[in-house]
C-alpha cells in the first residue's frame, strides 16, 4: 500500500494525483486548505479550493490566477485519486482534504483546524480515515481554550470599561477579526471601527452570508473615545496609532495563554482565543478519525508525535514541511 501523500521540497505532495497541498513553491496543481498566507502562496499554475475560500484566495493571487472550486463534500477525481473538501472549522472556506485511492486507503489532511464553535464557518467535520495528517500549533497539554462566547464577553466588558478612551484590539486581519466581530454581534449591535486591512476580508465574509458587527472605516474620524477599533498587529506602534490619542491596547491570540508572552508583548490586555485546536482538541480529533497512522505537521510536531506513539500506541511521525516560523491566523 503506497503512501498517498509524501514530503516533497514543494510541500505535502500526492504523486498519484500529481498535486501538492498548500505548496511552498510554485507547482502545476495546488490544492489549498485555506486562504492564510502561509498556506496559499502565489505562483502555481492551477489552484483548487473550497467554494467560500475562492474570493479570499483570488484577493491573494490576483485576477489572472486559475482557480477551480469545489463545495464541501463534493467529490473530484484527479488521476484516479478521489478528493473532497470537508469543513475544518478554522475560518471561512477552510477545508480538510480527504483523499482516497485504490489500496492506499483514506487519507485526510486537516490543514489548520479547531473544535471550538465559530459563527463564521461550518464546524469541523469528523472523517474516518486510515492516515490523518494533523497540525500541532498548540499541541502541548498546557493549551486549552475557554468558551469563545466568554472571551467575547470579556472583550465587551473591556471595551465598555474604557469609557473615555479608544479600545484598540489587535488581531489577525483575516479569520480572527471576523470571528471576533461575529461573536461580538451576539452581545451588542454597537458599531466598531476597523483598520483598512480588515475592510476586504469583512466584505468577503458578509458576501458569504456571515453576519458581523457593523463596522466603520477610520476615514477622517477624529473622535475615538469609548470606541472599539480592530487592527492588524502590524499597526501597533505605527504613526497610524496617533489618531487615537488616549487608548488601551489588547491582543487576541492563543499565544497569550502563557503569562511570559502576555507580559513580554506588553499589551494592556490579552484575550486568549485561537483558531487552532488545543491539546485535547487534537487528541479527541485523532481518536474520532479512528486512524492508525498520524503524520504531524506544524508547531509542536515532535512532542505530539512522541506522545501519540508512547501513550496512544499510534504509528505517529513528525513531517517537516518548511514553513515560516509563525503560523498565521492563530
Amino acid at each position, binding site marked *: 500500500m503506497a503512501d498517498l501523500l509524501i514530503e516533497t521540497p514543494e510541500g505535502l505532495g500526492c504523486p498519484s494525483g500529481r498535486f501538492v497541498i498548500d505548496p511552498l513553491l510554485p507547482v502545476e496543481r495546488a490544492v489549498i486548505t485555506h486562504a492564510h498566507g502561509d498556506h496559499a502562496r502565489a505562483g502555481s499554475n492551477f489552484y483548487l479550493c473550497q467554494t467560500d475560500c475562492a474570493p479570499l484566495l483570488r484577493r491573494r493571487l490576483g485576477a489572472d490566477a486559475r482557480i477551480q472550486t469545489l463545495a464541501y463534500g463534493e467529490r473530484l477525481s484527479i488521476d484516479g485519486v478521489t478528493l473532497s473538501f470537508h469543513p475544518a472549522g478554522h475560518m471561512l472556506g477552510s477545508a480538510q482534504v480527504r483523499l482516497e485511492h485504490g489500496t492506499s486507503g483514506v487519507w485526510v489532511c486537516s490543514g489548520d483546524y479547531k473544535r471550538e464553535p465559530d459563527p463564521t464557518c461550518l464546524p469541523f467535520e469528523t472523517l474516518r480515515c486510515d492516515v490523518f495528517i494533523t497540525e500541532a500549533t498548540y499541541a502541548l*497539554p*498546557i493549551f*486549552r481554550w475557554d468558551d469563545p462566547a466568554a472571551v467575547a464577553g470579556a472583550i465587551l466588558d473591556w471595551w465598555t470599561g474604557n469609557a473615555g478612551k479608544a479600545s484598540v484590539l489587535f488581531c489577525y486581519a483575516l479569520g480572527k477579526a471576523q470571528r471576533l466581530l461575529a461573536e461580538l454581534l451576539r452581545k451588542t449591535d454597537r458599531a466598531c471601527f476597523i483598520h483598512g486591512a480588515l475592510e476586504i476580508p469583512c466584505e468577503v465574509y458578509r458576501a458569504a452570508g456571515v453576519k458581523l458587527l457593523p463596522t466603520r472605516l477610520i476615514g477622517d474620524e477624529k473622535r475615538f473615545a469609548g470606541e472599539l477599533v480592530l487592527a492588524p498587529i502590524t499597526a501597533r506602534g505605527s504613526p497610524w496609532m496617533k489618531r487615537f490619542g488616549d487608548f488601551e491596547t489588547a491582543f487576541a491570540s492563543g499565544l497569550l495563554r502563557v*503569562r*511570559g508572552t502576555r507580559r*513580554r508583548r506588553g499589551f494592556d490586555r490579552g484575550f486568549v482565543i485561537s483558531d487552532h485546536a488545543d491539546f485535547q482538541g487534537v487528541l479527541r480529533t485523532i481518536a474520532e478519525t479512528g486512524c492508525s497512522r498520524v503524520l504531524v505537521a506544524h508547531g509542536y510536531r515532535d512532542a505530539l508525535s512522541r506522545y501519540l506513539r508512547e501513550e496512544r500506541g499510534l504509528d505517529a511521525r513528525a513531517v517537516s514541511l518548511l514553513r515560516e516560523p509563525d503560523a498565521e491566523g492563530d
Partner: protein
Amino acid sequence: MRRFAALYEALDSTTSTNAKVAAMVAYFHAAAPADAAWALYFLSGRRLKRLITPRLLAVWAIEETGTPPWLFDESSGVVGDLAETVALLLDAVPRRAAELFSRPGRADGSLEPVMLPLESAGIPKTGAADLPLAGLIEGLLLPLRDADEAAKRAAVTGLWAALGVRETFLLNKLVTGELRVGVSDTLAVRALSIRAGLAPAVLSHRLMGTWTPGAALFEDLLRPGASETDHSQPYPFFLASPLQEAPDVLGDRALWLAEWKWDGIRAQLVRRQGTAWLWSRGEELITDRFPDLHDLARALPDGCVLDGEVLAFAHGAPLPFAVLQRRIGRQKLTPRILAEAPAAFMAYDLLEENGTDLRTLPLHERRARLKRLVSQAAQERLTLSAPVTAPSWEALAAERAHSRERAVEGLMLKKLDSAYLVGRKRGDWWKWKIDPYTIDAVLLYAQPGSGRRATLLSDLTFGLWDAGVLVPVAKAYSGLTDEEVDALDRWIRQHTVERFGPVRHVEPVHVFELHFEGIAESTRHKSGIAVRFPRIARWRIDKTPPEADTLAALRAMIRA
C-alpha cells in the same frame, strides 16, 4: 482569593503606574482588612517561606494528570515557569483523582469543581475559589509548615481541584514562596496613602521592618495620626539618584556637601527605649549579624536614629566590600571571622535626636548635631563620614578619580539645605559614581530568565580566554533591549551545542561588553575571580571571540 487574583492580574497586565495605583486603591477599599493586610504584605515585596519546592509541585501535577514527565518538561520549557506550567496543565487536562469521583462533566468537557472539607480548617464551605486570602494563608497554608509530604499534597491537590487557573497559579506561587507582584513598595504605599488619606511618608514609616499581617494591623495603618507603637522601626531610607552629567549643572559648589560613596551595607542604627536595632536598606533587621557594633550602639543616647554605612574596617581604614561579603555569607560568626572583618558604622546623617524626628531640618543642621553626637560617643567603631572639601567641581572631579584606591564607589552630593525625604526623589541627593570596570567577554551558556523574561533564554554566562580556553567569569541578565533579547534567544535556540537541564551551551560566537562594579579573588568561582554587579553594556557585533579579553587582563584589575 478571587479578588486578590483579580488585583494580581490587573497589576500584571498593565505597565501604567496610574492604572496600578488605581487597582490597588480599589482593592484596599473593597477587601476585608485581614485580606488587605496580606495583600499589602505581598505588594510590599514580602514573601512567605517556601513550603513546597516547585519541582515537588510538578511531580504531583504530573501524577494527578497522568502527563508523561518529558511532556511536562517540554511544556515548562515553553512556559518558562514551573508554578505556571502546573496551573495551566491542571486547567487543561482532566485529572485522574477527579475521574475517581466520576463527577458530571460540564458541557465543554471540563470538570465541575469539587468541594473541599474546608470546615476542618475553620473555613466556611462557600466554594473554595472565594476563600478569603487571609483564611487561605492562615488557615490552610501556614499550618502546613510542619506537616509531612502526604498532608501537604492532600491540602494542595484538594485546593487545585477547587480553584480556577488564576487562583491555582497564585496558590502555587504562594506555597513555593515565589509570589512576586509587579509593583514597587513605594507604589503600594502610594495606593495605601490614597485609601487612608494619610501622607505616604507616614505610611511607609508604619510599614518599615517586620510585621505580621492581620486585620488589626491594617486598621492601625489606616488610623489617622495613630501613635507609633513599635520602637524598633527605622525611617524610610532617602535614596540618591545617579548623576549622569557633570556636576556643574548643580550650580554653586558651596551649596553642596560632598562625601565618599562608601561601599558597604547602607543601614540605620535605631537607639530607643534602652535597646538598639540595626536595619539594612532592604528593611532587614541585621542587629544579630553585627555583634561588634553592639557596644557603640549602647554608647549612644536614647532616642536617636543614625543613617550610615556598615563597613569592614581595620586600622582606621575601610576594607574592600569583598571582605564584608565573606562575613555576610557565613552562617556562624566565629571569632576568627570577626577578627578578619571587623565591622564599623560610618555615619551619614542624624534622623532623630532626643526622640524628635529631625528629618525636616536642613542637612547642615542635622550634620552639625551628628558631628557632636559622634564625638561625644567617642567610639572607635563609630566614625563620621567626612566631607570631601575640594572647593570646586573640577577639584572634586580630581578627587573622584582616586575613588578606587580609597575603596569607594565615587562621591555623594547632597544639598546642604535638603530635608531627609522618603525613597528616591530627584534633585537634592545625587550619587556621582565612578565609571564601572569593563571587559569584552564571550557568551558561553544561556538559560531561561525570570519574571517577564521567563520564556526567553536571557540569563547568560560569559567567559574570558585562559590558555586558549574560555573560562566562565560572570553571569549577567540585564542590559539588553527587548529586541536584542528576542534576537539572541532565537540565535541560542538554533546554536545550542549541548544541554544540561535548563542550561544551554552555545557556540562561542558572540562578544559582549560587560560592566561591573567590583572585583575580588574567590575560591568559590572556577575562574578564581568574583565580579560584582555584572551587567551587559552592549552587544559587540563588531568583535569576534579571538578579540575578547583574557582572564589575565581581568586578574590585573584586582591589583590596579
